[in-house]
């Protein structure tokens, strides 16, 4: 939710219902323009004894979750090189709360499928996903993880999209995607989490309700 805290300084007014508009999130027009990644979902009321914060617990939980996503160290081909580059100093995904890459699924929140999933790897991916603690999120990075990509035709060994194995939250196009695209997908995932909507709710939501 994109709430301008300064707007609610006047505590005498009724608490306004915050309407989510397509513009309040950066999807489709450059996530970096969005201030939602930083906005705290609540209202500050200044009182003589100090400030009072009013918010919804669900919103606070989603806000907390979205700003500390620990990715699993999982890369199966060249997309992993771009993922490492995104983690490195130049693109630095720690700016958005992703720096704590974990080598075990028990401590990871998000799995970035960076690369081709072959039939032999599919059960391993499924097991890693099953071992992750809820809530868990999945990003399909690049053409291979999205659809099999260059290995869609005339191959006996490649899974035609990682979503045949585990559910995917965000897909990125590219072969491989640039680090900026990965950053965009990570921020998109944050906004999806902050919206608090399930996959089904997103599907049935009206355009103005979508994140």
């Amino acid at each position, binding site marked *: 939710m994109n709430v301008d805290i300064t707007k609610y300084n006047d505590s005498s007014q009724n608490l306004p219902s915050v309407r989510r508009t397509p513009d309040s999130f950066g999807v489709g027009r450059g996530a970096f323009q969005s201030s939602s990644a930083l906005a705290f979902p609540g209202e500050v009321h200044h009182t003589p004894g100090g400030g009072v914060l009013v918010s919804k617990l669900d919103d606070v939980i989603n806000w907390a979750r979205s700003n500390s996503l620990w990715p699993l160290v999982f890369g199966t081909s060249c997309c992993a090189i771009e993922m490492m580059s995104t983690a490195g100093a130049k693109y630095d995904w720690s700016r958005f709360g992703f720096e704590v890459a974990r080598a075990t699924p028990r401590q990871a929140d998000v799995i970035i499928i960076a690369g081709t999933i072959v*039939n*032999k790897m599919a059960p391993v991916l499924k097991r890693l996903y099953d071992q992750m603690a809820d809530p868990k999120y999945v990003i399909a990075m690049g053409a291979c993880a999205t659809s099999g990509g260059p290995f869609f*035709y*005339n191959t*006996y*060994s490649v899974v035609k999209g990682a979503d045949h194995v585990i559910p995917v939250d965000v897909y990125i196009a590219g072969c491989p995607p640039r680090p900026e695209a990965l950053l965009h997908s990570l921020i998109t995932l944050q906004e999806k989490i902050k919206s608090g909507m399930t996959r089904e709710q997103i599907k049935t939501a009206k355009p103005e309700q979508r994140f």
Partner: protein
Amino acid sequence: MTSEELKIKLTAFFQTATFGESGEWLNMNIAAANLPATTNILRHDPVLNFDYLFCQTCVDFKTHLTMVYHLTSTGHRLPLVLKVQLDRNNPEIETVSQTWKTAEFHEREIYEMFGVNFLNHPDLRLLILPDGWEGRNPMRKDFEDPINMIKL
């Protein structure tokens, strides 16, 4: 030793072999039956001294299979490509894993991908393909997999 001297020396050793220089490196074609004797000389002759098998693979030409051995020496650094034509219906050839240990894994991969049967190989079983894979060789040109393959 230069590559010309190498070719002269190889011609002297292997009279039945044919040579080609279509590619970047010197090619030597031999018959499958001559492989053990040839590799033995290539490896153990003090001048030839081909002590490094840096690539071993197979090519499916639809009419026949061709085994390809890329050799070089840490001494003279001259590469040699050894080619052996095989019968596609019954591909059989002697292993070179006793001469170059690295061939053990290469031959396991060629065995599963092309179905070449390596005689006297110490451990000829599938390398990468999953257990229970039945006899079909994915790198053959006529390989079909109706379940997994989507034809263009």
